[in-house]
Structures are given as C-alpha cells and as structure tokens.
C-alpha cells in the first residue's frame, strides 16, 4: 500500500511537471508582448526594459521556467500583471467559493443521480424508467449556462428567492450548485442504473435472496456497494468536468471564484494568473482522482494496491 501510494505520488509529480511545462510553453507563445500590454502604446524603451527585467522576461525561456518552478515549489505562483497581487493570494481568496460550489454540486449530483438511478433500475423498462432516462439525458445535453439563465430568471428575478448574482453566503450558491450538478446527476443516474442492473444479475444476489433477505436488504446491503464501484470512478471524473463547468457557472452568476478569475485573466492577458490557475486546477483534479482510487479499496476489497 505505501509503496503503491509512493508510486502514484511519483507519477503525479511527473504529470504535474509535464502540465507546468506545457502551460508555461503555451502561454509564452502567446502573440503580443505582455509588457507593451501593461505599459500601453506610449511606453519608453527604458521603461519597457526596466519592466522586462523586473518580470524576469529578459532571461532565456528555460531560465524563466526554472525560476518559475522554483517559486511554485515554495508556494509562489508569481504576481499578477494586472492587479499586482500575488497569484497565490488571489487563488487562496477565490478557492473557497469554487470549492464550495464543487462540493455542493457533487453532493447534489451524486445523491440525486444515485437515487433516481436506483429507482430507474428497480422499475426497469417501465414508463418511470424511460422518463428518468430521458430526463437524465436532457440534463447531460442542455448547456449549463442556458439552464442557469432560466433558473435566474424564474427563481431570482421573478420569484425573488435568491440573489440574482454575486456572492452573499451559502444562499447564493444554491442555484449555481443546481446548475452545475444537473449534468453530473444525469451522468451518475445513467451509470447507477446500468451498474445496478448488472449487479442484480449476479449469483450472490440470488444467494442473498435464498437467505431470506427482503428487497430493501437486497438493494442497500447487497447491491449498492458493488454498483457504486464504477459510479465512484465517474464521480471522480465528473469533478474535472465540474471545475471546467465552474468557469461557466461562476461567470453567469458573477461569483468571485477561480473560474470567473480565469476568464477575466484571459481577457486581460494576465499570464501569471492564467498559468497559476490552470496549474492549480490540474493539481486539484489529479489529487481528487488519486483520492477516488483510494476510496476504491474501501468499496471493493478485491482491489489491493501493492
């Protein structure tokens, strides 16, 4: 187990270095000179040179990268070209909102998705089953920003239940979490259904029946844990989709999270911020998937990481 973890951490490190290299190269290929962008069209050559050396842009690219990575290891992601704040600080400020949003929508999506997935499996091939499946597919197919707009129109604008935009505590995260969780719920419902149907066919379910277990026990004691094994993978993968979705959702609801920051940073060509955010989000995604793999061992005792 520890050796497995070590191996995983090692590959994780390699992947992260790869990610950082890729992001770094990509962003430094951006056409247009960030220094000119910051100083405007009427900057003197002296001030340009001065800023370039202050930002370290006069050094060769590999040096810049090593310098950057040395900072990353110490928790320094550089300084925003636009605000002048440390990128790490900006992320730290905005991370809680994105994290809350992700957790609430994963919760909403998983609970809701697993529940209706079980119902659909139990009522296989009935109208209810088909209805649930069509609705899940619509949940997956509908653009989240579009759903968000109509949730805002109905519940915030017309009914006044929620704030229209901005962050004012938990209350203002309800609609965004529902928006973001819908696609997740649809995916999880479909996976739960097919996984449950697969498990119900297994011999050990017949054994449990032969022991005198009732339907409730058959589902919750004997099927659910087995059926959750593939669903857990999906939840882990959905986390990535959620972070990407957060970019859209935070923008629609004007929430000050990491997602809306990345959009504005791209618009202002604030390279250190974009770079730091992408690196951080990739890091989160990898960590979550590692956690999912570890949860497996709890769900499926057959899997042992050696």
């Amino acid at each position, binding site marked *: 187990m520890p050796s497995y973890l070590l191996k995983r951490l090692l590959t994780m490190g390699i992947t992260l270095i790869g990610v950082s290299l890729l992001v770094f190269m990509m962003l430094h290929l951006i056409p247009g000179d960030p220094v000119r962008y910051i100083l405007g069209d009427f900057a003197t050559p002296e001030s340009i040179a001065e800023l370039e050396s202050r930002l370290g842009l006069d050094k060769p690219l590999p040096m810049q990268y090593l310098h950057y990575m040395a900072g990353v290891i110490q928790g320094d992601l550089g300084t925003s070209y636009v605000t002048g704040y440390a990128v790490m600080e900006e992320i730290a400020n905005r991370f809680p909102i994105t994290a809350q949003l992700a957790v609430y929508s994963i919760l909403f999506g998983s609970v809701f998705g697993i529940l209706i997935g079980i119902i659909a499996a139990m009522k296989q091939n009935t109208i209810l089953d088909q209805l649930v499946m069509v609705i899940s597919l619509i949940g997956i197919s509908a653009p989240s920003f579009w759903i968000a707009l109509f949730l805002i129109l109905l519940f915030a604008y017309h009914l006044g239940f929620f704030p229209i935009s901005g962050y004012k505590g938990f209350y203002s995260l309800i609609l965004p979490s529902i928006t973001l969780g819908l696609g997740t719920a649809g995916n999880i419902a479909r996976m739960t259904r097919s996984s449950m149907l697969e498990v119900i066919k*297994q*011999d*050990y379910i*017949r*054994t*449990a*029946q*032969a*022991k*005198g*277990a*009732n339907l409730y026990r058959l589902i919750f*004691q*004997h099927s659910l*844990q*087995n059926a959750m094994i593939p669903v857990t993978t999906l939840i882990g993968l959905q986390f990535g989709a959620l972070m990407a979705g957060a970019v859209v959702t935070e923008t629609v609801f004007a929430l000050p999270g990491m997602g809306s920051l990345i959009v504005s940073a791209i618009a202002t060509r604030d390279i250190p911020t974009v770079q730091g955010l992408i690196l951080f989000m990739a890091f989160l995604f990898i960590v979550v998937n590692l956690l999912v793999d570890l949860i497996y061992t709890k*769900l*499926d*005792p*057959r899997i042992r990481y050696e």
Partner: protein
Amino acid sequence: MAVTEEKELLRVEQLCINFKTEDGGHIQAVKQLNLTIKEGETLALVGESGCGKSVTSLSLMRLIPKNAGFTEGKIIFEGKDLNRVSEREMRSIRGNSMSMIFQEPMTSLNPVHKIGKQIGEVIYLHSSLSKAQIREKSIEMLKKVGIPRAEKIMDEYPHQLSGGMRQRVMIAMAMACTPKLLIADEPTTALDVTIQAQILELMNELKKDFQTAILLITHDLGVVAEMADRVMVMYYGQIVEQADVRTLLKSPKHPYTIGLLNSVPDMDDESDKPLVPIMGNVPNLGVIQAGCPFYARCPQAFQKCHLENPPLFKLGEQLVRCWLYESQEVIA
C-alpha cells in the same frame, strides 16, 4: 439404508414451470412433476443440463423471477403450500427451514462483504440473537463445516478463500439455521475432484447431525451413489425414472438411465468395457412433439414411441416412463 417410516417433509404435486418467450407465449420447462421428500432423506434429481432440474430447485424456493416465468401446481412444505403463502412468509422460510447452496462458490458470495457478515446475516434474519451471539454462532458454524482458523476467516473476504473453502462457507451459511431441507444445486461441479469428496462427506455428516433432508441436483452419478437414498431421473422437464439408489444403479430400466450409466466410467469394473456416450442432444424445449422426447436418441425406440409420450409405469417400487414397460401398472 433407505429411511422408512419417516414423516413426509415436502410434497410437490403437478408442478409445471413456464417461461415467457419473446413473442408473448411461453414454454414449459418442467411438466407435471411430482416428488416427495421425507424428513432426513436425500433425494437426487439427475439429468443433463437443460432438463429442468435447476429450475425445479429454484421454484421450490420461489426464486424464479416473476417477469421470467410462472409456476403451477402445489409445493407443500411442512403442511403449507408455498405457491400460496405471502412473500413475507416465504422470506421467513428461505434460509431458515429451507436453504440452498449453488454450483458456483466463486460467484455466489458477495465480494464486498466479509465472511462473518455474510454468515451472520442469515442468522440475524431468522433469529433474535444479539450481535455477539450471532458472531459466536457464525464461528461455531464455520468450525462445523471444517474450516480451520474460523475466527480469522470471519474477517476475510471471499476472494481470499479457495473454491472449496467458499463452498464450505456457503454450506455453513445454509446450515446456520438448521434447515429441514437443504437444496444443493450441483454443489461440487465447480470443484477439484479431491475437494469434491471432502464436500460430499461434509454434507453427509451434517445431514446426520442436523437431521436435514437434502434435495441434491446433479448430473454426476458418482455423486448420486455417494449421497442419495432415492433418485429421480429427469429428461426434458419430466421424470423418466424413479427408484431407490441401489435399484437404480443396479437395474436401471429407462433407456436414458441406462445410457447415463453406460457413459460413466466404473472404477470397480475390471472388464475394460468401452464408455458409450448418448448420441444427440436434449431437444429444444420450445419444440412441441407428440411422442416420447427421448425417441430420437433412444436405441430401443419403436413405432409407438414416435406417436405418444408414455405415462409412468410401475415396476415394484420403481417408476419408469417408457413404452417398453407398457404391460405394467400406470401411475400417471
């Protein structure tokens, strides 16, 4: 050896099992089957795969899914017709006074639960013992089925055990509530030969200890010789021959039974006579035919076999469904 003067435990009358087909019709997998099992007796149900023996065993436990098929006839177990009792009452019988073990020990245990939990569940479902008592009883059962380090096994998962061990666990689970009837569906088919003998011996021991009757479903006549008091041979959803185990093995009457015996190597026989397989296959259940279903494969078939399905004829204590014995008394 045959147990006489014992009380009747299970009587099945005119059992028909029908499976729904895609076109909305149904096919009959088991046709008007009668059988009785006395307390403490071992009855073997023998036949090739597809003859309806496994389906029969599942129907006794009422484990055939409602959307797959339906059964007709009476299944009278301890005086109650199981086809008429409520689902709740049926659940209180399953695993309690009637239990079952299956062919595949590798897949019959839930891979994500510890052994202790799986044995404990059946005790929990049918008794009001405390958690500690349940654990104690589970360990006791594991010891009874000959599992060494029973306490340790309690906290292990099925994948950590061998096939033979798992079948022992299945047996411990099935015997935990001292059932009156144990249905064993090909209990040793998936196991190594040496393990097979151990498991059979174990079942014989437990049967004596617990006074449990066994309905043994098998295709293996060696197992039959080892275990059974009485034997019923099934072919194409029907009983074709029924006798006590000695009579059947010594003087089989039905050509199918004779064929089955000829296709098994006999260890005691020194004469080196060749094995004779039965030609052909069990016909498809969907095919409706007028005559004897064994007609096409039967070496002794004659005109009448082709036209009419024979009833059961009685030869002393033996019942045979074959026109060769037409002169005898008709049973059904």
